[in-house]
Every structure is written in C-alpha cells, then in structure tokens.
C-alpha cells in the first residue's frame, strides 16, 4: 500500500447515483389494491406461522402470522378485508421459487384494528419497548431484514454505547430513505430517542451521504434540539450504507471478522426502521406499508410511493403511469445488490426499497461482452471495502476449492458488488461468492443432518433393545404368574384333600 493510499481511503466505488429527479418528486400514496399477497417470510430467520383461516375477516394491522423461533417476525394485515387464500406465490427472490403467502381481498374500508399506543415511551421499560417492537413485526428496512426487536434486546444485553442511524443510502437510483429524512425528520429523531432509551445507549450518530444535502439540513434542524443526536455527513461512496463501513467511517472502529457491531458497542439501524419503531411504540402501528422508490429510464413517472406490503410490483408500476418503453431489466432493490426479476408479478415486502425498470442503455454495462479471463489487474482488490482479494477467491472457487476461498476471507465478503463493478474482464465475481456461500451453508446443513441421523439410529437401537428386554420381562412375569397359580392350585388341592379324608 503506497503512502497516498494510506492517506486517502481507497475502498469502494463511485457509480453515477442517478437519484434525481425521483428523489425530488413528492411522495405519492398508492390506493389500496383489490388483492394483497403477504408472504410469511419477509425477514431473516424462520417463517411466521399463520394464525388466520381462509374466509376470515381481518382488520388492518391485525396479526396474520406469529413469529416462531428465536429469530422471526410477526406479519400483519396491510388492509382490512377477507383472507381468500393461504398458499404459494412466486417469491421476490432471484430463484423465482414459491413462497407461502396470505392473500387478502381488500374490502375497501381500510379499517384499522384496535391499536395500543403510548404517549410517553420514555416511561416504558426498555424490555417492554423491545416486546412492542416485536409485536409490530418491525424488521431492518435497509435490506438485511433482521428482526429489530432481537437487535434491540441484544443491544440492551451488550450494553452498547452508540446508536448509528443509517441514512447512507449508497445504492444508486434509490431515494426512499432520502425522502423519508426530508419529509419525516421529526419522526426519525423521535425513533432514535426511543431506541436510545430502549438500549441504554448514550449518543446517536446519524450518518448521511453528502449527496443528500436536503436530508442533512432537515435532520440537522430537528436534531438541534437534542444534544445526544448528532448528524454526521459522510462522503458519498458505495457501499457507505453497509453497517461495517459506516461504523468505520463514523467512529473509526473496525468490526472484527466473526463478530457483530454489538461487540464494539454499536447498534446500527436504518432510518426507515427507526421511523417504523416510532410508529410501533407511539401508535401501536405494525409495519404494514413502506416507502418504495420507483426509478429507471423506462418509467414514465419515477418517484417515491407509499406502498402497502403485499401489493404486486406490477400494480405499483401501473400506479406510476407505467412504462415509457419496454424495460430491458426489472430489478427489486438497488442496481448493485438488488435482484433481477423475471416478471413484475411479485409482491412488495418489508425489504423492498425500490423497483427499478432499466432501459437497455442503462443495463448495457453488463451485457457488452461475456466474461473474459482474469488479467490480474488488481482493480477488485482496490475496490473491495473489506480488504479481500476477490480475484484469488474466484480462482479457487472456479476449481471448486471452497476451503481455499474461505482461507482468503470469503466469510467476510458482504456481497456489495464493488469487485464485479470495476472488473475490466467482466467476471461475475459476486455470483462466484454467493454460489460458494450457498454451497458452504448446504454442507453445514448436511453435517447437521448426518448428526441428527446418527442420533435417530442410536435411538432406534435403544428402542429395539428396550422392546426385547420388556418382552422378556413380560414373558418371565407371565411364567411366574402361571407357576404361582399352579402352586396355589396344588396347595388348594392339598388343603382340600385332608379335609375330605377327615370328612370321610
């Protein structure tokens, strides 16, 4: 590493952000669609378990499915109406595999269930706040979808000192967090203060990339009244919105490999999550809608739209006046880490930050030529925000040497896509890493399964042994009973015989 590179941080990339004019358009609210498809798995962890029946009427915000397991999140009805089906739909996922969802036919009234709010959240017990957040089904809205209540409870246990509100939004095209900070800065700061109370943290840092001056101004204005909340603009660089990179930039702490932000006394929450936490605590409102950025050259009216969870992407696009031209590529999320959709008949979920309809010119970057051999230029090494050697990892994965790739730090890869973005040979590096992470997880599952099988075999052997033993014991007991009966009969006969004799 040269001297200049030591002085100037050199990780990350600077893609053209293309956030405007969508970021400047006022938020529109989508009218309630007639049918909503609410998946039971919109978070990291175990899918929620449905507790409603087909044909049942539900109110807006009523619990549809309860969390099961340690890491899971509740799912609520996004509008009032009738449950018409609980079955499989196409998942908003690159695989296009089915996912179980509750389908609700809206009754048009959009009537809320009875909600329990709280006027003074700072009088609540911190653990009660985590419980209420869990009840509202709030998950991380920046994309990781980790259940927020688990994070709050963990933060309280780990005695964190700093809360970081993540307003980085480093993905190009997306502006939903930007819009939220401009329009609802007071809500976000209120949410920050509630989370500070819930975790016992002393200060909060709001990290916002400096390409969002309006959001910075709005947040600074509200935060001025609270000395514990400080707004800190950060340089615009992808992936600044990744939690580890933002922590590094704001506090100078590097989160070690194999540990979490908790371990350095920090908790990171997306600004959207903080607003959702505030709604859950103040008004008891569960997470049933979110801001979604519609952007891309193929759309007529790009902008941010308040969308109920479960609305089809197709309907959201139709609400935004549809396509100007046929999009070459549909993407859910941002262009760097989002997923390509084969079609738009997938529902908006809690993690859907954007729906992008890219024109052929916008998507062309990846389609010019197929991948070519690596020339070992090292561009990916300079771009990697974690400091890994993507070219070395990919070379090992190409020859199916997964453990070699792990030795090179594959588990620290955050799949941000910087390496593939800068690669002059257009090697799909991220796909290599995602493939390997999946294969390693599958091996891990197989190992657990083998252990479970061994336990089952042992249990069977024990059962067979127990059954034979019990059979033998029963047989012995029966024999003893028979012998005793015989003896008793003989004794009775013997006792009867002399009396007969005396009688005679």
């Amino acid at each position: 590493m040269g001297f200049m590179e030591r002085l100037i941080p050199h990780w990350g990339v600077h893609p053209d952000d293309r956030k405007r004019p969508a970021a400047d358009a006022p938020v529109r609210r989508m009218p309630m669609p007639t049918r909503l498809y609410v998946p039971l798995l919109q978070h990291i962890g175990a899918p929620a378990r449905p507790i409603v029946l087909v044909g049942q009427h539900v109110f807006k915000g009523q619990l549809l499915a309860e969390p099961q397991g340690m890491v899971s999140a509740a799912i609520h009805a996004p509008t009032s109406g009738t449950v018409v089906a609980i079955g499989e739909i196409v998942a908003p996922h690159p695989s296009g595999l089915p996912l179980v969802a509750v389908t609700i036919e809206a009754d048009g009234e959009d009537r809320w269930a009875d909600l329990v709010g709280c006027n003074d959240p700072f009088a609540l017990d911190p653990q009660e706040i985590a419980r209420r957040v869990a009840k509202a089904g709030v998950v991380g809205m920046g994309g990781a979808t980790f259940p927020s209540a688990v994070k709050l409870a963990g933060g309280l246990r780990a005695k964190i000192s700093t809360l970081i509100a993540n307003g980085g939004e480093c993905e190009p095209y997306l502006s939903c967090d930007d819009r939220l900070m401009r329009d609802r800065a007071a809500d976000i700061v209120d949410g920050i203060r509630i989370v500070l109370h819930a975790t016992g943290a002393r200060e909060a840092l709001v990290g916002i990339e400096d390409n969002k001056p309006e959001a910075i101004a709005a947040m600074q204005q509200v935060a001025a009244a609270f000395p514990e909340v400080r707004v800190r603009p950060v340089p615009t660089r992808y992936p600044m919105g990744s939690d580890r990179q933002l922590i590094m930039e704001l506090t100078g702490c590097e989160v070690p490999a194999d540990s979490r932000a908790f371990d350095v006394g920090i908790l990171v929450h997306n600004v959207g999550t903080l607003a959702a936490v505030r709604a859950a605590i103040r008004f008891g409102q569960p997470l049933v809608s979110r801001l979604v950025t519609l952007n891309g050259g193929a759309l007529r009216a790009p902008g941010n739209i308040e969308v109920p969870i479960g609305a089809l992407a197709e309907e959201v696009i139709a609400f935004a006046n549809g396509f100007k031209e046929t999009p070459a590529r549909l993407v859910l999320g941002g262009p760097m880490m989002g997923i390509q959709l084969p079609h738009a008949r997938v529902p908006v979920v809690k993690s859907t930050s954007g729906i992008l309809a890219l024109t052929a010119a916008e998507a062309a970057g990846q389609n010019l030529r197929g991948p070519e051999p690596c020339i070992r230029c090292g561009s990916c090494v300079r771009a990697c925000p974690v400091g890994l050697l993507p070219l070395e990892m990919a070379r090992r994965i190409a020859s199916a040497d997964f453990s070699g790739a792990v030795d090179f730090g594959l588990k620290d890869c955050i799949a941000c896509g910087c390496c593939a973005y800068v690669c002059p040979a257009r090697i799909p590096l991220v796909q290599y890493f995602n493939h390997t992470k999946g294969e390693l997880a599958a091996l891990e599952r197989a190992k657990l399964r083998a252990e479970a099988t061994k336990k089952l075999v042992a249990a069977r052997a024990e059962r067979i042994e127990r059954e034979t033993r019990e059979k033998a014991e029963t047989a012995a007991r029966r024999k003893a009973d028979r012998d005793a009966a015989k003896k008793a009969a003989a004794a009775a006969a013997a006792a009867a015989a002399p009396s007969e004799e005396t009688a005679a």
Partner: protein
Amino acid sequence: MLAAILSLTVLGAVLGLLLGIAGRYFHVEANPLNAEVEALMPGTNCGQCGFPGCAGAAAAIIDGTAPATCCPPGGKAVAATVATKLGLALDLSGMADKGSQIALVNEEICIGCCRCLKVCPTDAIVGAAKQIHNVLREACTGCEACVDRCPTEALVMHPVPVTLQHWVWPKPVFA
C-alpha cells in the same frame, strides 16, 4: 459318574486354556481407522454402497477398493469429511449426486402392513396395522430400504423439493 464329571471338566479346562492362548498369540490387530471412519458415516447400514453396512464401507474406503464418494445418503458432506480424514484426493464432480431424496407413501395403495416400519433405520415411518403409513420428512435419509420391502410398491422415492432456504446460486459458467 464321578469319572465322567472329572474327565469332562478337565477336557473343558484344557480346551479353554488352548483357546485363550490361541486368542492371545494369533490376535489380529484391527485397523483403528475403521472405527473412526465408521463414526463419520451415516450409520444407518442401509447397504446402498454395496458393502455390508457402514463398517464394511469404511473398511473398503480405507483399503482403497471404494472411493470416498461411495455413500449416497451421506452425499458430498460425508465424502468430504472422510476424504479429509484419510487425506484422499477427492473428486466430487464424479459423484453421482442425484440430489437428496426422500420416500413418500402413495396413500391410495398403502395397505397398512407395517413391514416398512420395521426396516427403516431411522424410525422415519409412522403407522399402525391397517392404517395408512406416513414418512416423517425430517427423519428420512433416503436410504431406499423401505422401497423394496413394500408389497404394493406404495413407497416411492421423490427428490427433496428445493425451497427458498435451500436454494444455492448457480456457479457462473463461462461461454
């Protein structure tokens, strides 16, 4: 009477002593690796590898007469652990991995005979006499022992469906 008892006792003692001495002198040292490798195998003794149980397969792998990939229910995971244990070069690409499979009961033709319950090495089939049987998906290892046992061919092997939790990004292919 006494002579008979005495002669038989002496005979027994002498033969026992001979057997004891022979056992000590002609003792065959079993390879301790066998037990260790056997512990890595699934342990269901299903016989799909063609060897007499997991112990037989372990011995064959150590001898080199069978590849580390010979265990179908163990899959790549078992092959990889066995190969690292023995320091073998592993060629997973040659492994006929038809994907993990599980048995399913065709309910129309199951007669409730209970024969499959008895051969299942993991007790993965539940049922009772003249009741339709069912396979516990989590416990079934796909060893196919029940398939041959069923008199009405009601047990069929099905591939385990790929779910969102199990899906793996495909490896990139170069054109």
